[in-house]
């Protein structure tokens, strides 16, 4: 299915993917009693934070992420992906790492778990990082900076 006016969009795959992500976060909440926030879980697994779930649970969740992606790659016969060059990835990764620690979360913890809980902090954080992301892409486009091949 395509969207009129947006030939590149994949609304059904997006919705299906979103439902899986929602089920994953629901399983974490109702099964383990915790928030499925990937930045916090990554920090917990690597010993960069001490609160939250146990270190072994954090590693199991992190291990699952590429495992689940691999299942989709195998079932679909390959996925499109274009990544920026190493320097851009390194700068972006640094900013994402610093930002998620200061901001106490990312797209999953604030954007999915917090927004659906109507947490004021998460709604403000989500609006802020969306606006910052949109402004960043707009500014880079205006400056003629193309980072993806």
């Amino acid at each position, binding site marked *: 299915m395509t969207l009129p006016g947006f030939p590149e969009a994949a609304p059904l795959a997006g919705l299906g993917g979103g439902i899986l992500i929602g089920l994953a976060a629901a399983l974490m909440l109702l099964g*383990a009693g915790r928030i499925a926030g990937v930045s916090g879980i990554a920090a917990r697994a690597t010993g960069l934070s001490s609160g939250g779930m146990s270190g072994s649970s954090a590693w199991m969740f992190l291990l699952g992420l590429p495992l689940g992606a691999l299942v989709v790659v195998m079932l679909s016969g390959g996925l499109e992906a274009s*990544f920026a060059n190493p320097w851009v990835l390194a700068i972006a990764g640094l900013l994402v790492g610093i*930002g998620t620690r200061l901001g106490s979360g990312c*797209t999953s913890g604030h954007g999915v778990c*917090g927004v659906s809980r109507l947490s004021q902090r998460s709604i403000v954080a989500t609006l802020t990082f969306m606006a910052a992301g949109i402004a960043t892409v707009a500014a880079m486009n205006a400056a003629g900076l193309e980072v993806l091949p």
Partner: protein
Amino acid sequence: MIKRILPPLASGTLFGAGLALGGMTDPARVRGFLDLFGDWDPTLAFVMGGAVIVMALAWRFQPRMAAPLFAEKFALPNRTELTPRLIGGAALFGIGWGVAGLCPGPGVAALVIEPASAAIFVVAMLAGMGLVRLIEGA
């Protein structure tokens, strides 16, 4: 043991499958969504919408449970205050997200799609997290 290991592994696997199916492991798709004033790709809105709807149902169900299915108690964030740290951090995160089209979940999931590129992002992300910890002396 199984009760402790299986739920987070199953959750992570479902999460990673959802990210890949929804196209979030392709930075071009994520940047396409953030390119609101250019060639906009609304796919990420469908991903977010689907996830938030399912999770909203889970939040309605949660208060009726005395305890989680596989743990002793719920351990959920309860902070409500808006701080400059929250907003500044979210802004920095958003800038990094816009620069490369990657956030933590897709970065880790993409380790099986473009291992070298995803690894650079993930290592830099952990370095950034470590930097905050170092500076704050926590």
